[in-house]
């Protein structure tokens, strides 16, 4: 087993640990993209170009885009919830 493969495996393990330990979803999306990149390199080294192609496109394009869209939607729901709450308060007061 070559040293390159061992280093790549360790990088994957370290980036996965960092992904789990970060609690903020926006930062997690970025680190998840980095982990996807290391995974794709690992799959290339394990002589699996098809899987590496899939992982590269999915892990760097699809998953971070979906995550950031969801986070934006959650924040928008927050803003609308605050507005609705204010309107309700005004109505109940007035």
């Amino acid at each position, binding site marked *: 087993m070559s040293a390159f493969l061992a280093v790549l495996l360790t990088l994957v393990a370290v980036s996965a640990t960092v992904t789990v330990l970060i609690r903020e979803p926006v930062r997690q999306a970025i680190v998840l993209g980095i982990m996807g990149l290391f995974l794709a390199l690992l799959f290339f080294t394990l002589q699996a170009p*098809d899987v590496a*192609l899939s992982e590269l496109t999915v892990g760097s394009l699809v998953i971070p885009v979906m995550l950031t869209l969801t986070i*934006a939607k959650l924040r928008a729901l927050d803003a609308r919830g605050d507005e609705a709450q204010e309107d309700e308060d005004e109505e109940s007061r007035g």
Partner: protein
Amino acid sequence: MRPRYIIGLVGIGLLVAALAWAATGLPAFGHYNQAYGRVAARDAVPTRNGTNSVVITSFDYRGFDTLGEEFILFVSVTGVVVLLRRMRSAGREEDSAASSGEIEEEDMRASTGERWLGAAAVGPVAVLAAYVIIHGQLTPGGGFQGGTVLMGAAAFLALGGESALMLRIRGSSSPIEIAESIGAGGFAAIAFGGLIAGGVFFFNFLPYGKAGLLTAGVVPLDNIAVGLEVAGALLMVTSELFEQRLRGGAT
């Protein structure tokens, strides 16, 4: 710490220890020696006349597994659409007509550089995606990879600021939905065609040909079907989330 966390950590520790112990029973890394894999690798090229044995394995020898995965794709996209479309109609009653008009105009005013870059990127990426899909049985690639690249080409439309265009091509019986359904149905139809032609589900009934573009029987058609479905599914999911962000956001 709560007792639930402690029990959870103990459980995880046991799981990792059990997995590590099981790993010692596997053959050492690099000494894979199973007959099925060796036969699949050795026989894919002579019998099917393709050169990418991974794609041939996944669409011909293990076509049933790929059919199951396709249906997982289809069902999850249906789930996403059902969940988020009901939300969208509930939210639309709260938006006034004026505010939704404002949202469309604001998003259309992307900078000129963004729009040029997005427009310039869509064409080459779409051609690349079609290349990857069609050449699945010859080089690394195939339906799944090419489908995601095709979704990327369409995502450039949204990133280039043409959000109004994206909103318009969505909606029920839009081209994206039709493409996805054709892909899923086409894959199943090819499988049934194998049943009719050869008496076995997923029988490879087209002639094999020489090692060129049209080889390996039904695998090119399968690749196209899967590519359509994956691209359609990912586009539908992303545009559902995207539309949520547009309609629910800028008030």
